């Protein structure tokens, strides 16, 4: 069966510091991968998605970037965090041909102080 991992589970970082969140998927090949942010009182916001190694699409211009160095690894990064980057970050995967079947990871709670 497929599993999706995210780490760290929680993170407290000062403004201006860098960020790296990692997501890995097991038990499937060639998945689509997604990064979402869920801010308090707001819905899930798609940040990035990837259909293959090195292929990243950005949905929202912002302070963040994403990379996919391996088929089942997805990384969310920032060079300098802003207060507004605080939130709950979720990674998800879907089968290559069924992007609507999205399965979410456990999430990372990021607090920027």
């Amino acid at each position, binding site marked *: 069966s497929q599993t999706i991992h995210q780490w760290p589970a929680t993170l407290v970082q000062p403004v201006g510091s860098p960020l790296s969140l990692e997501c890995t998927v097991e038990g499937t090949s060639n998945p*689509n991968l*997604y990064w979402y942010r869920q801010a308090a*009182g*707001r*819905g*899930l916001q*798609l940040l*990035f*998605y990837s*259909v293959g190694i090195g292929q990243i*699409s950005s*949905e929202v211009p912002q302070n963040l970037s994403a990379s996919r160095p391996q088929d089942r690894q997805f990384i969310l990064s920032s060079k300098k965090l802003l207060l507004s980057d605080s939130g*709950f970050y*979720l990674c*998800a995967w879907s089968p290559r041909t069924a*992007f*609507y*079947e*999205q*399965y*979410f*990871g*456990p*999430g990372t*709670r990021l607090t920027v102080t």
Partner: protein
Amino acid sequence: SQKIEQNSEALNIQEGKTATLTCNYTNYSPAYLQWYRQDPGRGPVFLLLIRENEKEKRKERLKVTFDTTLKQSLFHITASQPADSATYLCALVVYGGSQGNLIFGKGTKLSVKP
């Protein structure tokens, strides 16, 4: 503008009753509509998907309806239990969008009291 709204931020009901959650949308033509459950501090878990040509879908105590004329989906939990307490999200899948085009509502927090 395009909107997806879940009418109640919170819904409190008594154990054993039927919980009904509403999802309305405007200016979308979704191919599918999905419902997810999200527990505090956890990622959403997929529950049900209903297609535009389906009126109703059931899974155990869950029932989803989809009315493309009213642009509305109803999500029912029958014989509700305290363990059903969670936030429920609806999400639209829209044809012609990008590979990532799953559009979420803000969710309804359901509390089932014993």
